[in-house]
């Protein structure tokens, strides 16, 4: 693994993948000339992006650059107004059936966890398999326990989200998404709302997920994570993709002035 030339934030605190990370030829997500406006504000400008199955992409950029909007368009939490988005061969249109298919195959983890506070951890995880996949309760709970073990909190299954720490809640949120057996996982600043000592436990889970071959799109400023698992880093500003490169080159040899400025700001506090 290349080390970044800059002061290498948190390089040591990230667990590096032990397995070889592979990428298939199959296209998972294709975005062609996507535009989106919030009223007068042009948030996404001509986004072209192809993601292969098994790719792990980190998206970074200043706040308001459209990176969250970009990934939220992929499961239709935001609607794009121009262009084409195809996820796993299904095009996102106003056809509700397509939206449903895509949503059940794409998991998302939010900055604010968004766990359901009135349900236990186990119920949070088994809810969607029961109501969307029409699974037996016992089967859904078995799957939920499997993923809770994978994120290392099976002992918290009977508790309510309010009784857990931020890091534990975010791991439950990851397990909840995984219970739907998604083919693509989106992360929208998953560690930004966490205390520093909890970031590692969440990132470790994400590294393991990458090892399992999951297609991942991750909006994050955890550059240690980017160097450890990403095979591509995308830099966005003012709603455009300014630059994309594999992590080593991205950090050591940024091409555009804006990328250089951004990197110097986040790497030298």
């Amino acid at each position: 693994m290349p080390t970044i030339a800059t002061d290498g934030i948190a390089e040591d605190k990230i667990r590096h993948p032990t397995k070889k990370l592979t990428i298939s030829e199959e296209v998972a997500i294709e975005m062609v000339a996507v535009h989106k406006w919030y009223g007068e504000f042009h948030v996404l400008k001509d986004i072209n992006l192809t993601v292969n199955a098994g790719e792990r992409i980190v998206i970074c950029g200043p706040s308001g650059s459209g990176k969250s909007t970009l990934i939220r368009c992929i499961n239709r939490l935001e609607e794009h107004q121009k262009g084409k988005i195809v996820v796993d061969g299904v095009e996102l249109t106003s056809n509700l059936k397509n939206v449903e298919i895509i949503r059940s195959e794409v998991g998302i983890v939010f900055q604010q966890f968004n766990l359901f506070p009135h349900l236990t951890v186990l119920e949070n995880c088994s809810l969607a398999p029961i109501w969307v996949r029409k699974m037996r309760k016992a089967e859904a709970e078995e799957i939920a326990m499997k993923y809770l073990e994978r994120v290392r909190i099976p002992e918290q299954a009977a508790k309510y989200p309010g009784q857990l720490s931020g890091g534990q809640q975010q791991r439950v949120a990851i397990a909840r998404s995984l219970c739907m057996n998604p083919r693509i996982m989106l992360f929208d600043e998953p560690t930004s709302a966490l205390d520093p000592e909890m970031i590692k436990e969440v990132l470790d889970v994400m590294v393991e997920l990458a090892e399992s071959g999951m297609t991942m799109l991750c909006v994050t400023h955890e550059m240690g994570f980017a160097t450890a698992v990403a095979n591509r880093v995308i830099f966005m500003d003012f709603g455009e993709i300014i630059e994309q490169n594999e992590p080593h080159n991205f950090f050591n040899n940024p091409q555009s002035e804006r990328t250089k400025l951004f990197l110097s700001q986040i790497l030298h506090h």
Partner: protein
Amino acid sequence: MAVISENGANTRNLITRLWSNRETRSVIIQIVTLTVIFATLAFIFRNVVINLDARGKEFNFDFLFHPAAYDITFSPFIEYSSRSTHLRAAVVGILNTLLVAACGIVLATLLGFIMGILRLSSNWIVNRTVYCFLEFTRNVPVLLHILFVHGLIVIQLPVPKKAVNLADSFFLTNRGFFIPKPVWESGSGLVAVVLLISIAFVVLFKRWAKKAQDSTGRVYPVLGISTGVIVGATALAFLAADMPLSWNIPELRGFNFSGGIAIKPEFIALWLALSYYTSSFIAEIVRGGILAISHGQTEAAHALGLRPNRTLQLIIIPQALRVIVPPLASQYLNLTKNSSLAIAIGYMDVVATVGGITLMQTGKEMETMIIVLLTYLVFSLIISGFMNLYNKKMALVER
């Protein structure tokens, strides 16, 4: 401790010490508070005894068994005439209060939820219209609303001879609304039995469907099937029993209607005014409750693939109800207590009967007022008791 009596400085010192210690301080405060409460009660009690004595009155409830000698125009539940006792008059009053409070709570809840949801509409006209109505209603005293609706009915509606005729069955007049009265004939027992059986079936079916979903994963359309069974089975039984229902339709006889059910203008005015007044508060509570659930909850549910109706059922409503129910309970209490304004338009509720005419006739202020107070107290305690039970069951677990 012996030091205290010897010199004043030490006494002051002791008081300061007792007062600055949190435990002894709270004991002192409790003793003082209890003393004040008991002293006040004793004063009030003594005052009552002296005053009753000075007027040569005795404290007893014997008057309840004497004839009331006044008429009550509205007694839909029990027989009452001017020869009935004061006790019976009191019961009529209490039942009338209960009737208008119960009907009011139902209508206010219905209107309140509808308006609360419309208020969240993204349609500008709907949203603004409801907003204006709510602001107007909430900011005018409820007594004016009652007088306004009563005035509308009594002054604006025609006399019975020129009644507003709806489909020859419903008549709106300034003496009240006249509606058809259902008359059950032989065979209606069968319909009632079938209705009860189908309700029992639905309760069992609901449990079964939950179990079936747990063990097979299949989701059954519980609401649709339940409605279908209740409506369908009852309708079939009704047809099978040769439609054992006829309507007693009100008819104009002389200067007024006879037959059917007569709903007095006082009741309608009080019911409608209390309902829409309270519903404007409930609407705001409902709106607040729904807005209190963060948009992230909806997004998370949608992202998991849950459809909008399931999201509402499983995620939004259970959480919104927690926020809505406590303030809703206090609106129910308000409505019940506001119904005492009935006296302004001559609706014979508990205040107008026991607390009004009976009081005037017998001079038993203490006794009658105790009855009135206890009536409202019991209603209120029952309502808040239920709401507390609900809250306890639904409370979110944190930490």
